[in-house]
C-alpha cells in the first residue's frame, strides 16, 4: 500500500486556473446583482420594498459568489482527481489529515461573514421595522376567504379593495376573525400573519401608484389558493380622498366607526347599544392574546378578566377607579400606561365606539 502512494499533490496550475475562473465568475455575479433592479420582475412600490430589494441583492451577490466557489471546486476536484485507468488499482490520495491554518482560516472567515451579515441585516431590519410616524392607521381583517378593511372616519367595514394614499406614512394593523391568515402584498414586500387574538402591525410608505394583489400565505382552508383576488390600491392623494369620501357616504348608515383618536371622554360610546355576542367574537380577535377568560390571577400579559365587573376581591380597575362599565370603556378607549404595565388604546387596537360597547356588554356577562 505504502509503495503505491502518489507523490504529494500541490496546488498546481489547474487549481489556480480554476480559482481565477471562479473569481472572475463571482465578480461578474456580484456586479450583475449590484446593477440589476429586482423591480423588473416584481414592482417595488414601497420604501420597505426598496430596502428589502437592496438587501436581497446583497444576499444574492454573496450567495452566488459562495456557490460558484463551492460548486466550482467540487466539480473541478471531482474531475481533476478522478482515478485514471492507468492508476494502480490500490492508488490512494495524499494522506493529509487536515491543516490547522486552513481550518482556522475558514472557520473565522465564515464567522466574520456572519458578523458582517448580522450587522447589515439588523440595520435593514431596524429601518423596516421601526418607521416612526404612525400616519394613517388602517386595519385589515382576514376571513375565510377574503379580507375586510377598516378606516378611521369610515363607518363599518370596507370590502373589496384596500386603498391607501401614495407617499403617506401608513400603519396597517392586521388580525383575523377565524383562523390564521396572512396579509402579503408582494409588490410592496410587506407581510404579517393575521392571527386571531393578536394584532400585528406593519409600518411603511407606499411610493408608487398602482394596483397590487393581496395574497394569503398562511393556509386557511379549502379556498386558501383563491384568497389572492383582492387588490391593494395605491392612489394619488386626490384619488384617495375621493375614494375615502365615497365610502364615508356609502357606509354612513352603519353605526360602527373607528374613533379618529383616543383621548377625551367616553361620551361618544353608547353602552346601552352593546351586544354581548359581538363582544365575545371581538374579544377572541383582539384581546385574547393578553387576557384569559379566567380568574384575575391567571395572567397571560394582562390579568384574567373573568368577573372583571363582578369580582369583590378586585373591586378596582388598574387605574384605581371602581370597576364600572363606564370605567372599563374608558380604559378600552384610552388604554393604560403605568406601573402595572401597558394596555393599548382604541386606535392601536382598532376599536370603534360600537366595538367598545360590545366588549363591555360581553365583559359584563362574565361572572
Amino acid at each position, binding site marked *: *500500500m505504502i509503495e503505491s502512494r*502518489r507523490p504529494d*499533490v500541490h496546488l498546481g496550475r489547474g487549481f489556480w486556473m480554476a480559482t481565477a475562473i471562479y473569481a472572475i465568475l463571482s465578480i461578474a455575479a456580484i456586479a450583475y446583482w449590484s446593477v440589476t433592479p429586482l423591480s423588473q*420582475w*416584481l414592482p417595488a412600490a414601497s420604501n*420597505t420594498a426598496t*430596502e*428589502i430589494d437592496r438587501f*436581497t441583492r446583497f*444576499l444574492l451577490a454573496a*450567495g452566488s459568489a459562495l*456557490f460558484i466557489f463551492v*460548486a466550482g*471546486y*467540487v466539480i473541478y*476536484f*471531482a474531475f481533476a*482527481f478522478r482515478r485514471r485507468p492507468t492508476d494502480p488499482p490500490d*492508488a*490512494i*490520495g*495524499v*494522506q*493529509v*489529515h*487536515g*491543516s490547522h491554518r486552513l*481550518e482556522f482560516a*475558514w472557520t473565522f472567515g*465564515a464567522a466574520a*461573514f*456572519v458578523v458582517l451579515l448580522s450587522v447589515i*441585516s*439588523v440595520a435593514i*431590519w431596524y429601518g*423596516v421595522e*421601526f418607521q416612526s410616524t404612525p400616519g394613517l392607521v388602517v386595519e385589515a381583517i382576514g376571513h375565510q376567504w377574503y379580507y375586510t378593511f377598516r378606516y378611521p372616519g369610515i363607518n363599518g367595514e370596507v370590502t373589496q379593495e384596500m386603498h391607501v394614499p401614495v407617499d403617506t406614512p401608513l400603519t396597517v394593523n392586521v388580525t383575523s376573525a377565524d*383562523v*390564521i391568515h*396572512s396579509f*402579503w402584498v*408582494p409588490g410592496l414586500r410587506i*407581510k404579517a*400573519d393575521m*392571527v386571531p*387574538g393578536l394584532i*400585528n402591525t406593519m409600518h411603511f410608505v407606499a411610493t408608487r401608484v398602482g394596483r397590487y394583489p393581496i395574497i*394569503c*400565505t*398562511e*393556509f386557511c382552508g*379549502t379556498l*386558501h389558493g383563491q384568497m*389572492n383576488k383582492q387588490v391593494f390600491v395605491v392612489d394619488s392623494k386626490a384619488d384617495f380622498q375621493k375614494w375615502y369620501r365615497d365610502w364615508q357616504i356609502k357606509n354612513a348608515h352603519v353605526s360602527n366607526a373607528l374613533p379618529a383618536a383616543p383621548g377625551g371622554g367616553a361620551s361618544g360610546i353608547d353602552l346601552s347599544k352593546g351586544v354581548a355576542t359581538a363582544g365575545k367574537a371581538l374579544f*377572541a*380577535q383582539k384581546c*385574547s*392574546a393578553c387576557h384569559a377568560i*379566567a380568574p384575575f390571577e391567571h395572567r*397571560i400579559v394582562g390579568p384574567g378578566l373573568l368577573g372583571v365587573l363582578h369580582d369583590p376581591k378586585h373591586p378596582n380597575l388598574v387605574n384605581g377607579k371602581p370597576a364600572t362599565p363606564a370605567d372599563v370603556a374608558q380604559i378600552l378607549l384610552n388604554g393604560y400606561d403605568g406601573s402595572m404595565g401597558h394596555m393599548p388604546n382604541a386606535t392601536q387596537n382598532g376599536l370603534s365606539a360600537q366595538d367598545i360597547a360590545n366588549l363591555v356588554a360581553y365583559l359584563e356577562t362574565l361572572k
Partner: protein
Amino acid sequence: MAVAAAHVGGIADHIHPEPQGFIRKYIFSLDHKIIGIQYLVTGFVFFVLAGLLAEIIRVQLMHANGGFVSADTYNEVYSIHGSAMVWLVVIPLLTGGFGNLVMPIMIGARDVAFPWLNMLSFWIFPISGLMLFSSFLMGAPVAGWTEYPPMSLQAQGFGTSMWALAIFLVGVSSTLTGMNFLVTMLKMRAPGMTFTRMPLFVWGQLATAPLLMVATTALAAALAALFMERVFGVPFYDPTKGGSPILWQHMFWFYSHPAVYIMILPGFGIISEVLSTFSRKPPFGYRMIAFSSMAIALFGFMVWAHHMFVAGIAPFLQLPFMVLTYAIAVPTGVKIFSWIATLWGGSLRLTTAMLFAIGFLILFTLGGISGVFLAAIPFDMHTNGTYFVVAHFHYVLVGGSLMSIFAGMYYWFPKMAGRLLNEALGKLHFWLFTLGFNGTFLPMHWLGFMGMPRRVATYDPQFQFWNQFESISSFVMTLGILIFFANVLWSIKYGKKSGPNPWGGRTLEWMIASPPPYYNFKHIPKVFARPYDYSQPLPYKGLEEELTTAKPEPVPAGAH
C-alpha cells in the same frame, strides 16, 4: 466471573444463541442489522406512497386552475405528503435504518444496548405509519405537516386527531431509538474505540440521539394538547376560549427545527464515510467535522422562532433568533469546506455512491444558502409562506437528506445483501434524479419571490409555465427513483457478489462478512487508531478469524 465482568464493562463479549425460525429471525428480530433492514424496507414503502402523493400535487399544479383533484383533496394530499416524508421516511431511514444497520458494528459492538427496546421502536413505526395513512379514510388533516391551529381545530372528521396520535406514536419510537443509540455509543464501544477514533457516521448519530430524545418530547406535549382540544374540548389553542394559536407554533418548532438536524446530521455522517472511502483519503479535519455536528445540534435548539418572524413575536425577540440562525452557517460551512478539501488530492472513484455524495455537496450548499436568506428577517418578511420556502427545504431534504440516503444505499447495500447494486443503473438513477430534482425545485425560488404562495390548489396563471416545467421535471425525477427500486429488487437476487469489502472501506463493518453473522464479531476487536489513514495498516487487532470458518467463542456457562 468473566461474564459478570463483561457486563460491568458494558461490552457484550459473549454471544447469545441465534434465534431460529423465520418469525424470530426476520419479523420479531432482535438483531440490529435485521431491524435496520426492516426500517429501510418500511421507510422506502412509505417513501413510495408519499412520493405518489407528491406526483398528485405536481399533476394538480400542471394547470393554474387545478382540476385534477378537488381543493380539499389537494390539501389532504400535501399534508400527508409532508408528514409522511418527514416522520415516516427521512427520520426513520437515517436513524432507525442506517443507524441500526451499521452504527453498532462501526463501534465494535455485537448489538445495540437494548435489543428488545429496539424491536419495540421498530414495530411502533409501521403501525403509526398505517395510522397516518388511514386518516385518509376519516377526513385527513388539511393544514400541512405543521397543522397550525385554529385551522387544525376546524378540520372535520377524526383524521386530524388520528394524525396527532400517529405522529405522537412515531415520536415515541424516535425517542426510544435516541435513548438506545446514545447508551450504545456511550457504553458499548470496543476497547480502544475512543470518541476521537469513532467513524464520522457514528459522530453523526451521536449528535442526533440527544436531539431525538429531547426535542421529540416537546412535540409530544404539543400533539397531546392538540388531541385533547380536538377530542375533549380542552382549550389550549383556540383563541375564542382563551387559548393561544402561537403557543402551538412555539412548541411545534421547538421540535421541528431540531428535527431538521435529525434529518441531516446522520446524512452528514454518511457523506463523510463515502467521501473518504472513495477519495482514498482521510476526512480533512476529522475533529472539526465531528465537533461541528455537535455544535449544529446544540445551536439547533436555539433558533426555532425563525419560523415565526411574521407570526407576531416581539421585534426584540426576533433578533437573537436571526443571529443565532446565521451562526449555524459557521459549523455547516466548516463541514462543507472540509469535505471539499477531502476531495482535493484524492484518488477519486466515481462510483454511484460517490456521485450522490458529490451531488449532495452542491445541492445541500444551495439549500444552505437559501436557508441563510430565509433566516434574514427582512428577506423572510417577503418570502415567508411562499414557494421560496418550499424550494429551500426541498433542497435541504431532497438535495441533502435524500441524496445522502441514496449514497448510503449504494454504499452499504453490499453489506446488507452480499451483492452490489448495479452501477450502470445506479448512474442512470443519479443523473435522472439530479436533473429532475433541479428542474422541479429550482424554479420555485423565483416563483416564490414573484408572488406564488405555498399550499395552494390553484394559482395565478402567470406562474403556469414554470409550474408545468416543474411537473414535467418531477416525472423525470420519479423515473430515476423507479430505476433505483428496480435496481434494488434486481440486485438482491442477481447483483454481482460483493465479498466482505467491495469498496476498500476501513471502518469495522467492512472487516466482517457480508451479510454479517448474527453476532457481528467472533472476537471483539481492539482499536488502535482512527480508521482513515489509507497508507497505514488497519488499526485493529483480533479480527484475524472473522473471515475464516472458525467458530465463534462458545457461549459461557451462565450467560443469559
